[in-house]
């Protein structure tokens, strides 16, 4: 029936082209929207999520509790009305017993590696100007086992920080903003201590302007010295064998610890929510477009069947069974679905290639980020194909139910 199906489509060029355009445009829109959204997602995942360990152990802030203070100073039975209620935090958050964690992580077969970190906000002085920065103290050899930061180093090497020596690797954007170059020495202060000189030995670029303007890496012991808290850490980044079990493992560790233990999913919950929202938006738009195209196919095939009743009658009377009639109209839907999908995907791909050449100013991202993941093309094709077939089934089934005599009698 392929021969006849093609002839049917060719004989009704305008309607065929309209349906074809509906499916093509639907598929094209899906490809473009998906390309953009997944492109941005891949970028975020690559630049931010890959720099997040599977599990992050961090200190809880020790907040001053009014009820606890009341009980401690006046006993449990006193009713105290504070004029100025006690508030704030007791001290800077830090992991209370890091050695306990190190022992535990070293012995755990599930753990691939861990990296103790001390992160603090600092002030950088250069001449008469001051700039805020976020300084992270790391042990390069341990950090490399957990984070993928080495690939973002644009100048120098991470291992240069090993063993301390008051060296730092800073964000490229920060270097530019402050007016520094590799080899310069800057003064870094925690705000509570005297400034300490750090020599810039390298640069890194994560590609996110806001982060690249404040990021600084140094050896853990140097950062502890700047903060005057030797041995203190604020965070332990841990990678485990199966990252999909991160939530489960984090929950079990948190049960036996006062510290905060978060999986990568929890730590990036806001991104995950954005991804879910993007998916909902993408699928909603796509379904709306394809439903319109589907109704187009349904309408045109239904009209065509009414107009082709005589042909159905003669086909049935010369021995074509109902399944052949079903095939005749279903094939037309399939042809439209396949060709519309292919042209839509090709058109979408071409537009995506063009969009990826558009520059996005000084965001640090560069061009518009597009994804060319095969999953986009496969799901786009399936969407168009399935919607075309579904829209054809009802009219095709109705056509197959027509008997030659009903049609012939209605003609006479």
């Amino acid at each position, binding site marked *: 029936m392929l021969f006849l199906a093609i002839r049917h489509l060719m004989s009704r060029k305008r309607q065929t082209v309209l349906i074809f355009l509906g499916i093509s445009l639907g598929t094209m829109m899906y490809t473009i929207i998906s390309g953009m959204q997944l492109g941005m997602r891949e970028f975020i995942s690559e630049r931010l999520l890959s720099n997040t360990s599977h599990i992050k152990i961090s200190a809880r802030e020790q907040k001053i509790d009014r009820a606890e203070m009341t009980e401690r100073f006046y006993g449990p039975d006193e009713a105290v009305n504070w004029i100025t209620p006690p508030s704030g935090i007791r001290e800077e958050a830090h992991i209370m017993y890091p050695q306990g964690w190190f022992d535990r992580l070293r012995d755990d077969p599930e753990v691939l590696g861990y990296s103790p970190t001390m992160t603090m906000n600092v002030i950088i002085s250069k001449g008469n100007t001051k700039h805020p920065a976020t300084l992270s103290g790391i042990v390069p050899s341990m950090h490399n086992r957990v984070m993928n930061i080495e690939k973002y180093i644009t100048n120098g090497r991470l291992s240069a920080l090993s063993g301390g020596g008051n060296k730092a690797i800073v964000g490229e954007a920060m270097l530019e903003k402050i007016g520094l170059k590799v080899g310069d020495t800057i003064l870094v202060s925690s705000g509570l201590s005297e400034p300490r000189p750090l020599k810039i030995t390298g640069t890194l670029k994560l590609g996110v302007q806001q982060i690249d303007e404040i990021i600084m890496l140094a050896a853990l012991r140097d950062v502890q010295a700047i903060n005057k808290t030797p041995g203190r850490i604020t965070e332990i980044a841990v990678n485990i064998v199966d990252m999909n079990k991160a939530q489960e493992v984090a929950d079990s560790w948190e049960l036996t610890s006062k510290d905060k233990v978060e999986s990568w999913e929890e730590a990036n919950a806001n991104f995950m929510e954005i991804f879910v929202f993007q998916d909902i938006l993408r699928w909603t738009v796509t379904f709306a477009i394809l439903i319109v195209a589907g109704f187009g196919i349904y309408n045109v095939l239904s009209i065509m069947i009414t107009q082709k009743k*005589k042909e159905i009658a*003669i086909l049935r*009377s010369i*021995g*074509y*069974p109902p399944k052949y009639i079903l095939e005749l109209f279903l094939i037309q839907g399939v042809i439209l679905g396949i060709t519309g999908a292919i042209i839509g995907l090709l058109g979408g791909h071409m537009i995506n290639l063009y969009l990826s050449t558009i520059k996005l100013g000084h965001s640090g991202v560069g061009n518009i980020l597009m994804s060319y993941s095969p999953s986009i093309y496969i799901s786009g094709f399936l969407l168009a194909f399935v919607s075309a077939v579904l829209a054809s089934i009802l009219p095709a089934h109705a056509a197959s139910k027509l008997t*030659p*005599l009903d049609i012939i009698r209605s003609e006479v």
Partner: protein
Amino acid sequence: MSLVCTDLIKEFGKPATRIIHGINLSINDGDFIAISGRSGSGKSTLLYLLSTLDQPTSGTLVIDDKDTSTFSVEALHNFRNTEVGFVFQFHYLLPELTALENVLLPARKTHQHEEKTEYAKSLFEEFEIPDKWHKFPSQLSGGEQQRVAIIRALIMQPKYLFADEPTGNLDSQNADNVMNLLKKINRERNTTLVLVTHESDYAAMARREVFLIDGRIDEIRES
């Protein structure tokens, strides 16, 4: 006897209205039967029953010693495809196919259309429209369209040809031509021809004329 119907009854609707009342008829191989009668007498209904396009409410139809009620759906379709040719009042040619492609439609079902092409072209010559096979139906006259429809009915070299008012939509000249063609087919190919007509002149061309009144055989005239 190649086609025998016994106590054939056909009813339609609810409550049932009987259109065909217990028809008994035997048709020999190579016979030419005309079914005639007034409008509403059940001529076409009887033709559809005899050609297996429709199923009787009761009664039996035996074709070549086989009871058609025992045919499977597939066997019935195959029987209509290979053993039966139909000619209707309207030509029912597919407008998007050429005359030749229309003619080869029955053969296409069994993938015989290529080997039947030469035979089809010889039929176009025999029926005096040799240069029309590549034309579309819209490019043919009414008489030519009906000839193409007859060629389509003959392409599988069927044993039976059923014609339902084949001249009903033609002028008298073309109608005469079509009737002469049908008679020629019956005579030269020994094809069993069952013709429904309300034209007494054409009915008289048959070997036997079955005259129906209200779904009953009133008279069988032999010529």
